[in-house]
């Protein structure tokens, strides 16, 4: 057994710094690289891409990344875990295999492929069998939105990842794997922890929670003493250095920017937190009120004491369904009376939309520079405010009506209050809205598969 294992975070979301995972591999010693590509909205975007092109539907960035780092990962025996497969895990695995072959690594790379999370094609089967799939928040039944569903994925935990590691996989790719499982799995595998040792499972899960958002644990988006956080241009992404007894240290590579301290870790621990005593994943229910943090030298925070409780009988399902259309556009008004001009433009625009008889569910006007982030808490703006951006959005069920709205913004430049600009981008884009239907499904209905593909 290794006396310590280092798991590095390479990507906090699809669109994060492309250089981060490369620097994690090259900047110092690591054993595992984990990359989270999936936000809730991502699955439905990928589903759309796949509808247009059957070979698409996964994070291409991951394949490009492997083109760059795979030889070094093989040489240094760094294992890579990712949920980049999106809604086309097999397609992603095939693309990785091609990359490995092109790099002359045939026979040297085993690709672990995890499927079974995508239940889009099984929804009707569940409905026929009267499996109750209800919205966790509203209680409404799936049948109400069934015909609008675009994607449906179960959040899978660390077990299939551990199985793939056990089978010798170097690169593991899956679809809707939980972010935390990507960090937990290497620790379970390396230290032979039992999946019934709830404290250990909770420990690995919380380690995963700390690094799953990339640099948000190492100085990015950190309010505490933000002015003095060094060299964010070269921010180092966080690394978990874990020990067999369950203690771990959050750190980053030497010579990188950013900062890991108790405060940066606390901020990330609380990010997207619900009830801290009941952090539920497929693997465990972790208790955040048991976490003990301690500074352990420069850019090192020691984490210990974590307790967990048995996991639940259910998987969480994330279902995305189309729920109408929206568009948002902006105009910028300058001094003098910038706010008054923007407010008048808002009224004129509403009056014109009304006259056109357009139907919307929601119209929202925000005044950037005045109230877009803190609303009325920001108070009245100064009289001489240099500029205000009017940000105007509509949402509705009729695509035509939303489309028609997008043609009403530019005319305000010649037909509204003066000294207005900021329309270089053209008409606002009409976007389809994806709404979420979070639900629970009994675990025994879901079959996960782990296959090994030899490159």
């Amino acid at each position: 057994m290794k006396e310590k294992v280092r798991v590095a975070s390479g990507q906090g979301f699809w669109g994060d710094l492309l250089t981060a995972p490369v620097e994690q591999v090259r900047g110092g010693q690591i054993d595992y690289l984990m990359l989270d590509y999936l936000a809730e909205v991502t699955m439905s975007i990928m589903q759309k891409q796949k509808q247009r092109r059957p070979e698409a539907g996964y994070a291409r960035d991951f394949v490009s990344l492997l083109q760059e780092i795979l030889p070094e990962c093989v040489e240094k025996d760094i294992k890579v875990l990712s949920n980049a497969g999106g809604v086309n895990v097999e397609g992603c695995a095939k693309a990785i295999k091609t990359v490995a072959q092109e790099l002359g690594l045939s026979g040297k790379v085993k690709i672990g492929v995890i499927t079974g999370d995508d239940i889009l094609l099984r929804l009707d089967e569940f409905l026929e069998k009267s499996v109750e799939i209800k919205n966790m928040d509203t209680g409404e039944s799936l049948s109400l939105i069934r015909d609008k569903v675009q994607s449906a994925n179960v959040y899978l935990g660390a077990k299939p990842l551990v199985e793939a590691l056990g089978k010798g996989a170097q690169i593991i790719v899956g679809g809707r794997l939980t972010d935390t499982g990507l960090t937990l799995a290497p620790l379970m595998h390396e230290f032979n922890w039992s999946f019934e040792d709830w404290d250990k499972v909770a420990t690995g899960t919380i380690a995963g929670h700390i690094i799953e958002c990339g640099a948000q644990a190492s100085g990015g988006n950190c309010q505490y003493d933000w002015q003095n956080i060094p060299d964010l241009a070269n921010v180092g992404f966080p690394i978990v250095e874990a020990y067999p007894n369950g203690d771990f240290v959050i750190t980053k590579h030497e010579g990188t920017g950013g900062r890991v301290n108790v405060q940066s870790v606390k901020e990330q621990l609380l990010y997207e937190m619900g009830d801290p005593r009941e952090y539920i994943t497929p693997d465990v229910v972790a208790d955040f009120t048991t976490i003990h943090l301690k500074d352990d030298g420069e850019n090192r925070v020691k984490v210990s004491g974590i307790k967990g409780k048995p996991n639940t009988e259910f998987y969480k399902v994330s279902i995305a369904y189309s729920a109408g259309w929206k568009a948002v556009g902006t105009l910028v008004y300058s001094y003098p009376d910038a706010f008054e001009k923007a407010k008048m433009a808002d009224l004129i625009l509403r009056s014109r939309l009304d006259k056109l008889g357009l139907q919307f569910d929601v119209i929202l006007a925000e005044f950037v520079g005045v109230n877009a982030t803190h609303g009325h808490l920001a108070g009245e703006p100064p009289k001489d405010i240099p500029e205000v951006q009017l940000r105007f959005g509509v949402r509705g069920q009729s695509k035509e009506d939303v489309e028609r709205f997008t043609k009403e913004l530019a005319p305000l430049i010649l037909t509204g209050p003066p000294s207005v600009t900021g329309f270089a981008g053209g008409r606002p884009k009409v976007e389809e809205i994806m709404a979420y239907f979070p639900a629970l499904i009994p675990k025994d209905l879901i079959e996960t598969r782990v296959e090994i593909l030899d490159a």
Partner: protein
Amino acid sequence: MKIELLKLAHARSGDKGDTANVGVIALKDEFYPLLVREVTAEKVKEHFGAIVKGKVERFELPNLGALNFLLHESLGGGGTLSLMTDAQGKTFSTALLRMKIEIPETEASELGL
């Protein structure tokens, strides 16, 4: 005396559907009891006013010197439904730190405020 929460705590916020969460962390351990006493769910709900349409829940994390707040129905529907600039509640943290709390002069000087 009145003191802005910004002087006592740092914070981070995020989203879960139409709910924003704000984690409020004491800048010094000795400020935590004051946060527990003064930054109640009721006062936070009152602070946000019309911005938070649903209820406010509070959870205590004494081990981190932190409080976690859930602000229900705050994000214009949340996710891609929302038309808001801050559909993901990222700036609710600093919005909460604008809150002013009342603290006796003696206690303030004991805490070095």
